[in-house]
């Protein structure tokens, strides 16, 4: 190996972070320039991860609540899902480089594209969740309402998790290498937000299941995010850096505090339930932003791309 002159080919050290099983390695780069492109997605995308997850988990919660004899909870959850599916398509369309061509998504179904799969899931889920809520409010066509509610409830968990596949099916290391954990982070985050939102909009006497969904979801979110960061090892460093680090810490703090408030005081004290729910909603938003921003940091530094690949080659021998 020769030594670089001036600003020659860059060399980066990738240190083994906590949970890392690999030793430090010297990494050669081209003027420290990224190997990968930064995502071109803007704030609408993490916002949609939140609204889509909220709508999906709420539809499931609403459907179960109606069956379980909690009409007020069911109504609140349906309304939340309706809100989610009204804003979600608007967010997705406004993020396109050519918004007027959004319907080009609907000219094909491509099973290899998580975005295509997701578009079709949303195309069925959105009207179903919308019809379920609107028909129930109006008291029209109860059988159609039930059908719509069942479809939306069944697709809800897919809505809440496919977005994790969408980001993981990229070349960005911090996303792709977390492909086994990200769907659980998103599922937990969606459940926490849906439970929290329903708790806010339901009288305390009927919000028990919503609080339980909120707490279970929040614990899943916290646990899965922690497992993800540990398993990522040095690749998970973006979750400790810059704005991704701040979003990530805020997510953990809000979600942990919200869980404690709802879990310990939510049943008896309305104030604890309300503040706890607001914290869980904030935590869920922060979690999506942490994941979104970590992708940018991971793509920007070639050490995350080159280091593990070089090691893979060496391990293969």
């Amino acid at each position, binding site marked *: 190996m020769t030594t670089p002159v001036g600003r020659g080919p860059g060399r980066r050290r990738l240190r083994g972070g906590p949970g890392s099983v690999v030793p430090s390695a010297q990494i050669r780069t081209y003027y420290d320039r990224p190997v990968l492109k930064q995502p071109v997605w803007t704030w609408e995308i993490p916002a949609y991860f939140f609204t889509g997850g909220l709508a999906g988990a709420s539809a499931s919660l609403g459907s179960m609540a109606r069956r379980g004899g909690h009409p007020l909870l069911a109504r609140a959850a349906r309304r939340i899902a309706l809100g989610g599916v009204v804003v979600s398509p608007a967010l997705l369309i406004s993020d396109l480089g050519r918004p007027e061509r959004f319907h080009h998504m609907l000219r094909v179904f491509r099973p290899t594209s998580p*975005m295509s799969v997701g578009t079709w899931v949303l195309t069925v889920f959105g009207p179903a969740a919308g019809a379920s809520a609107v028909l129930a409010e109006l008291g029209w066509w109860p059988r159609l309402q039930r059908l719509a509610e069942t479809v939306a409830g069944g697709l809800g968990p897919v809505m809440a998790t496919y977005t994790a596949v969408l980001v993981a099916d990229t070349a960005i290391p911090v996303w792709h290498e977390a492909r086994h954990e990200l769907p659980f982070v998103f599922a937990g985050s969606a459940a926490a937000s849906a439970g929290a939102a329903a708790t806010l909009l339901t009288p305390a006497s009927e919000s028990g299941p919503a609080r339980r969904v909120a707490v279970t979801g929040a614990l899943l979110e916290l646990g899965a995010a922690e497992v993800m960061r540990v398993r990522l090892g040095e690749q998970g460093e973006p979750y400790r850096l810059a704005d991704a680090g701040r979003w990530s810490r805020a997510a953990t703090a809000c979600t942990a505090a919200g869980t404690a408030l709802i879990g310990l005081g939510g049943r008896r004290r309305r104030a604890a339930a309300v503040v706890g729910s607001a914290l869980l909603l904030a935590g869920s938003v922060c979690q999506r932003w942490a994941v979104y921003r970590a992708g940018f940091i991971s793509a920007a530094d070639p050490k995350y791309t080159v280091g593990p690949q070089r090691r893979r080659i060496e391990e293969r021998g």
Partner: protein
Amino acid sequence: MTGYDDGQPRMGFFTDTSVCIGCKACEVACKEWNGVPENPFAWTGESYDNTSSLGANTWRHVAFIESGGQSTASTVQSASSVQSEDEDFRWLMSSDVCKHCTTAACLDVCPTGALFKTEFETVVVQEDVCNGCGYCVPACPYGVIDRRESDGRAWKCTLCYDRLKVGEEPACAKACPTDSINFGTLEAMTAMAADRLDVVVAAGRAGAQLYGDGPSGGVDGAGSVFLLLDDPEVYGLPPDPIAGSKHLPSLWGAAAAAAVTLAGAVAAAFVGGRR
């Protein structure tokens, strides 16, 4: 696989960086032929490279790597010993381009079908279909494709699809004065690459290696084969790229497990009819 059954062999590039002289005729020819917009002009200070990377407006990119021997201190010390320093001094040049992957991540994730495989098994964006969703951008493991800010759509090398259609070679290959850029059937390109590697190694270039040859690896082989004189990452290329879509089963498997967990958590909240 293209689904075409017309006897048309797969076409591709062989870029032999050992004879690249860094003239950038390929960059210019590509821009001219394809009507690619100009780049905002800036000096990078990175050797002769002012385009920096492939992107929406750069479909051929010449990398320049200066390294070795000639340390500033020794140059100051003795101007007469330039010759001996020259032996260690290294100035690598390489013209990079889209790899036209066999398993192309950009194409796999495209939700509109704008990206497609041509009859030459090259990967091309249909500009009248692309709606600028941007998914191909972080999907490409080589950081090739990007969205053009001025028009909101994704752009990259088409391997001069219009020229291939009428039996012409791509503009970059046509313009290359040293035959660093070669074009032909992928089979011929791979064979040519292997022959050149033998010659270059016999001439004493220890670090020489082929990149993108053969049908194995994370993108199942590329339509652009390279002879490099050092490791790929030195040129800004990923040493062991993988198309995310190769992991689709495990990606959806994890999502299915998470979805079932979510449904279970919701159902469990109603167990026992508690309020």
